[in-house]
């Protein structure tokens, strides 16, 4: 038997050891390299990898929609819709005329204009059209034209067109609410954007098998259900448009509110605008809801509040009478009545309102100062100031859900002011004090409902994305603006105003006897920015109510600088009130008296 060849065995072992050693060295080299890559340079490579793979972006929340009342239904008046921007990359478009001819049948417009845009040089992005509908988007993409693409973007859409546009406001290009409800309730409507932070593949699809992925879904904005009555709003806007032309005004604002809840049923201004094309508006003033943002001197419609305050203090009675000298001299200035009022004679509370006696309103302030006398004192000024500011809440925003609400202006009861008597005499008949239509309506509502000042509101309820409904209950701001019977005393006085005008030939101020309708005109001088008042320029205002057994609706009309002859309150404000009151009665919005 041959012995094993030890030389061969030794060589094999050596070879094995050599390769083993080599393998070990290679593995050690790999190991060291891996150690450097994965441990020493971990931070660098981790960051580099994450910068490429980790995607972090926001998921936008859907903005809440806005709805309005339509009989027993609630219907949307502001919705969201994804619309598309059509763009072209001129570099890829070899035959602009042919491409333009292809897209015109889908998107409309002018082929030459599109071709011209596609000829633009030194750019890779030209917008051809905006706000394409989803079907237009699909049809354009189906054409498969190189260099033509679309981008989706969420827009607010308004199924009712420009209806209530100034109350609603709009959403700007940055997704922020501007004016109206959109501005005031921007936070609620916006919701909360979601967030995705995840390692993704090359297409941006999150890879679930990765530690630390975050996906936070968005919380969509609340649905806001307004108190606006859609058909009432539509009819009000139609009336304002007609009267704007008839009275040749610079603008008209009006509102209809429920005095027992503070809910606004209709609120409009003319001129108005289309919120879906807000960017084309040349005069930004039309964005404002004038009924809330524009405080003016209301003129004699203020006498309803002066009368209420005097009645509440017990310094006058509804049947009080006084000798009207037809003028008072206060701080060296004359406060006079108009010639048609018949000069100096015995007058009463009803005639103060029916004939709109400035001397009568001043007399009421005198009674607040010192009953039975004819002088204005600090006591009367402080009392009237207290009623205006603390009872009727003038000179401060009402808190309605609207952007840019005006606080108005009530002059301070500064007894060191040498003209304070005159200043306050003026406020008693609505000059030198500034109110919005809403402030006037809310204050009168509190008188008519028995003394409760409800915060005016445009929101009936809000519905959260979770479906939870939050009803906006009437909010009592002031429990005792006037005594519970003052409204009952004021109602016949204001009805008398309506009857008086009807008897004087304003035939349209006739209303069926099973309804109660009362009102008060106001013709206010317009202050110059530099001081003093314009001559022959007036604002016409009207404040009134319509109801059956009790006032159901308070109506306020501000007619800005009407261009027709006659007293602005009577000839420009009053017809609008009449139209609105008839509209409410004719459309059965008002419950007639239960007994004649």
């Amino acid at each position, binding site marked *: 038997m041959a012995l094993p060849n030890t030389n061969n065995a030794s060589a094999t072992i050596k070879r094995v050891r050599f390769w083993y050693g080599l393998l070990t060295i290679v593995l050690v080299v790999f190991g060291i390299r891996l150690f450097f890559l994965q441990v020493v340079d971990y931070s660098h490579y981790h960051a580099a990898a994450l910068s490429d793979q980790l995607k972090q972006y926001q998921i936008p929340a859907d903005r809440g929609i806005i709805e309005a009342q339509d009989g027993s239904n609630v219907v949307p*008046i502001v919705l969201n*819709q994804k619309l598309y921007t059509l763009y072209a990359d001129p570099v890829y478009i070899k035959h602009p005329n042919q491409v333009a001819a292809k897209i015109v049948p889908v998107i409309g417009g002018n082929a030459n204009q599109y071709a011209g845009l596609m000829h633009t040089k030194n750019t890779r992005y030209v917008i051809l059209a905006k706000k394409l509908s989803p079907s237009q988007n699909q049809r354009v993409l189906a054409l498969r034209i190189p260099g033509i693409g679309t981008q989706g973007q969420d827009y607010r859409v308004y*199924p009712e067109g420009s209806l209530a546009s100034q109350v609603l406001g709009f959403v700007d290009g940055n997704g922020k609410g501007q004016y109206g409800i959109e501005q005031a309730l921007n936070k609620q409507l916006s919701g909360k954007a979601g967030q995705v932070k995840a390692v993704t593949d090359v297409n941006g699809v*999150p*890879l679930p098998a990765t530690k630390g992925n975050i996906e936070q879904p968005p919380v969509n904005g609340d649905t806001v259900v307004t108190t606006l009555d859609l058909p009432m709003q539509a009819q009000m806007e139609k009336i304002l448009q007609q009267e704007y032309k008839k009275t040749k005004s610079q603008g008209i604002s009006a509102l209809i509110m429920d005095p027992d809840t503070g809910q606004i049923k209709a609120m409009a201004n003319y001129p108005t605008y289309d919120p879906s094309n807000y960017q084309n508006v040349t005069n930004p003033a039309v964005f404002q809801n004038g009924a809330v943002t524009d405080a003016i001197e209301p003129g004699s419609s203020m006498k309803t509040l002066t009368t209420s305050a005097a009645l509440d203090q017990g310094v006058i009675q509804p049947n009080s009478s006084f000798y009207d000298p037809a003028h008072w001299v206060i701080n060296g200035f004359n406060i006079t009545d108009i010639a048609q009022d018949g000069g100096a004679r015995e007058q009463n509370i009803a005639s103060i309102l029916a004939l709109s006696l400035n001397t009568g309103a001043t007399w009421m302030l005198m009674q607040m100062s010192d009953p039975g006398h004819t002088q204005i004192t600090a006591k009367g000024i402080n009392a009237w100031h207290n009623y205006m500011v603390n009872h009727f809440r003038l000179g401060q925003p009402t808190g309605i859900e609207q952007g840019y609400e005006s606080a108005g202006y009530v002059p301070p009861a500064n007894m060191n002011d040498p003209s304070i008597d005159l200043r306050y005499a003026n406020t008693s008949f609505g000059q030198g004090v500034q109110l919005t239509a809403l402030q006037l309506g809310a204050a009168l509502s509190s008188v008519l409902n028995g003394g409760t000042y409800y915060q005016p509101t445009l929101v009936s309820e809000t519905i959260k994305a979770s479906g939870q409904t939050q009803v906006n209950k009437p909010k009592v701001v002031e429990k005792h603006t006037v005594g519970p019977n003052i409204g009952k005393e004021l109602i016949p006085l204001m009805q008398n105003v309506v009857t008086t005008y009807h008897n004087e030939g304003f035939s349209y101020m006739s209303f*069926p006897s*099973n309804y109660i309708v009362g009102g008060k005109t106001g013709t206010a001088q317009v202050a110059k920015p530099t001081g003093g008042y314009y001559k022959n320029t007036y604002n016409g205002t009207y404040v009134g109510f319509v109801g059956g057994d009790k006032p159901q609706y308070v109506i306020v009309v501000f007619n800005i600088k009407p261009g027709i002859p006659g007293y602005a309150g009577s000839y420009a404000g009053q017809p609008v009130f009449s139209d609105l009151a008839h509209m409410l009665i004719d459309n059965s919005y008002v419950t007639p008296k239960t007994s004649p």
Partner: protein
Amino acid sequence: MTYSSSLAMGRSRFSGRNQNSVVFRAPVRKLGPISNTITLIVLACLLGLLYLTQVTKTNTFGYQISALQQQQANLQSQHQNLEVSSARLQSLDRAQNSTAAKGLVPVSPSGTAQP
């Protein structure tokens, strides 16, 4: 007595004092260092493969989720469009200008009913 101790007693009969005993054992086959290394590498590869399979499988769900989310977004978009169309069809302007409305005979009220 346990089962194992009974076996031990049985065996002792064949291996008494001064007796040689021969035990035939199969030669122990040991894996060499290379085989060990290769086995370890293969095992590591298998484990890696298993891990990759699982990760890929999990990530596939990501694509399914993404597709479903896309489908959800499309349906929501369609829903929005339908809502808008519905609201437009029911709008006051459209109702007022509809063929049905145009076919109505205008009637001006001659007066409001008195009680």
